[in-house]
């Protein structure tokens, strides 16, 4: 099991023929993801990397039966691509793109709220259900080889910091059920709560690692949700204890403003909700191992 995607998921790539789209589609196929086609307006009817290219997402879905899409499209056109995918009935949309204007994402959110589609991102590394030799599904830029199929669900706002959590849980043998990088933007698709809900319902996931950072109230909201609706053990780490106020720390959403969104406040909220919080990013795997061994 797993959440959102598995070895049976059929995936298309919007922006397939571009540099990023090509490279990451090749990587996905090497991992065993079922890539079934791509979309580049104007190149419909051609072939790329052995996959059919379509002019529109609707056509791609009609011809291939794809239910997931990964979007490697520049910021100026990315929101349009997301909305096209929603309109075409894609169920799991992953947008890697960093730099989409906030105003565009507000429109995307408005359309998403009227549909059943899941959006992961933007400004994210993607998601992966680990599995060797075609038993997994990788949609994103993460290095497949550091993952191990297993029992910990990981949800994170960061990219490389997620890989740390993955690395630690692979090394200690726990492995991962599904890892979701929800991204670093202030206005995004799935949030922590959406992922926690799915992990709680997933039989394969026994524990959850939550990787947060400064800015916004997502971790505080997650804490409330965990207290009320999550029974599985949760380990959390929050990056940005040393971040100065008012400065955007790389991610558009990682900013402490008006005294709100500090790492301290997030740690406190999560701890109060019964979450095992760790001070050090090097301790996420150890803490989860302890939680699961104690059961």
């Amino acid at each position, binding site marked *: 099991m797993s959440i959102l995607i598995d070895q049976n998921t059929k995936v298309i790539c919007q922006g397939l023929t571009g540099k990023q789209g090509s490279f990451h589609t090749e990587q996905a196929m090497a991992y065993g993801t079922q890539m079934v086609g791509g979309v580049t307006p104007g190149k419909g009817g051609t072939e790329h990397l052995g996959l059919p290219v379509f002019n529109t997402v609707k056509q791609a879905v009609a011809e291939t039966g794809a239910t997931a899409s990964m979007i490697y499209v520049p910021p100026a056109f990315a929101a349009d691509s997301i909305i096209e995918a929603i309109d075409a009935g894609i169920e799991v949309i992953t947008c890697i793109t960093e730099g989409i204007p*906030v105003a565009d994402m507000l429109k995307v959110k408005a359309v998403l709220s009227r549909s059943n589609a899941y959006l992961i991102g933007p400004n994210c590394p993607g998601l992966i259900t680990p599995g060797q030799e075609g038993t997994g599904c990788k949609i994103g830029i993460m290095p497949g080889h550091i993952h191990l199929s297993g029992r910990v669900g990981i949800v994170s706002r960061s990219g*490389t*910091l997620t890989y*740390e959590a993955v690395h630690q849980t692979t090394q200690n043998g726990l492995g991962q059920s599904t890892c979701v990088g929800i991204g670093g933007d202030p*206005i995004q698709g799935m949030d922590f709560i959406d992922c926690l809900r799915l992990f709680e319902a997933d039989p394969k996931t026994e524990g959850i690692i939550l990787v947060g*950072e400064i800015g916004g*109230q997502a971790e505080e909201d997650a804490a409330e949700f965990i207290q009320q609706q999550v029974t599985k053990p949760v380990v959390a780490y929050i990056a940005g204890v040393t971040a100065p106020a008012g400065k955007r720390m*790389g991610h558009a959403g*990682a900013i402490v403003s*008006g005294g709100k969104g500090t790492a301290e406040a997030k740690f406190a909220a999560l701890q109060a909700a019964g979450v095992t919080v760790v001070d050090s990013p090097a301790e996420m795997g150890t803490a989860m191992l302890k939680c699961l061994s104690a059961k």
Partner: protein
Amino acid sequence: MNLHEYQAKTLFQKYQIPVPKGQVIESLSELNNALNSVGSDAWVIKAQIHAGARGKAGGVQLVSSPEQAQQVAESLLGSSLATIQTAGKALPINKLLIEETLAIYQEFYLSLLVDRATRKHTFIISAAGGMDIELVAEASPEKILTVSIDPVVGLMPYQCREVAFALGLTGTAFKQLATVMQGLYQLAMAKDVSLLEINPLVLTEQNELIALDAKINIDSNALYRQPELVAMRDISQEDEREAKAADHQLNYIALDGNIGCMVNGAGLAMATMDLIKLNGGEPANFLDVGGGATPDRVAEAFKLILSSSEVKSILVNIFGGIVRCDLIAEGIIQAVKEVGLTIPVVVRLEGTNVELGKQALANSGLSIITADGLAQAAEKVVAVARENQG
């Protein structure tokens, strides 16, 4: 990206938002012309810097004669100003806004921003405007009005009326509020505004509304489609190092410590800073070297880190996903040589070909210390900084 008060007010005028009569000067020789042009018998002289709380720091002064104006302008223009909002830095004052004075009856607070929680453009308004809005928010949150704008229908007249009634407005001012709010919303949508703040929005004794101050922050992600606004950028107000970093596609923020960091990924970069602190060290900076740790990028990153003379050691923490560690190691070695680095560097690599990468670093003949894992990397760099400090 921030705009100056005078630039925000120019935009306000385009959107039918009343502002005081005013003129910007860049040199003292322009002062008299501005005083005459503005034409009152008393003026307000305002330092144009990208920060608030100027009044409390002496950056906004009332003058009642051309001689006084000259004195104040002389003392402000060309100097620099630190306020409680500039995080200890003093920003250069290259322009002054000379404005007419107003007969103020009441001061309101008004801001427009995108609320992350509701995902809507939201007005925040209070009858207690002026200098201490932060105190009002803390002490009397019930005095703060919130208006959420539905993106499907936009700002509705009934929403403006609600606010006008709540503020006790009548007559001209009552009608004006709707025009002001609509104008601000249109401006925010057209110019990709992240945050817009008018503190105070003044009700004059003539029962008219005027925006006495104006702060606008533009969504950086939208600059590609706002060339007019890009032309308004004032680099003198930005941290030189941070701006330079951005030019090289590096994300850099200077801090106070002596341990430099270079990391790929913002989350991991913050975590690395935090881990250094946890081990008793003080990070000197945040630096996200991004997805491509090429020799050039790494060299530029080293240079930025070294621009702080405090730095006694550097931690390079790269979790190379798809990029091979041996290539990253080569990049680091090349950069260290190019920059002529003499302080110790601790390198922690993870990912494809990590052993090859570590070997290359060990054999480089440079003072590079390799670390196994995140925890060890932080411990080593803190220890080495301590040694190097004394």
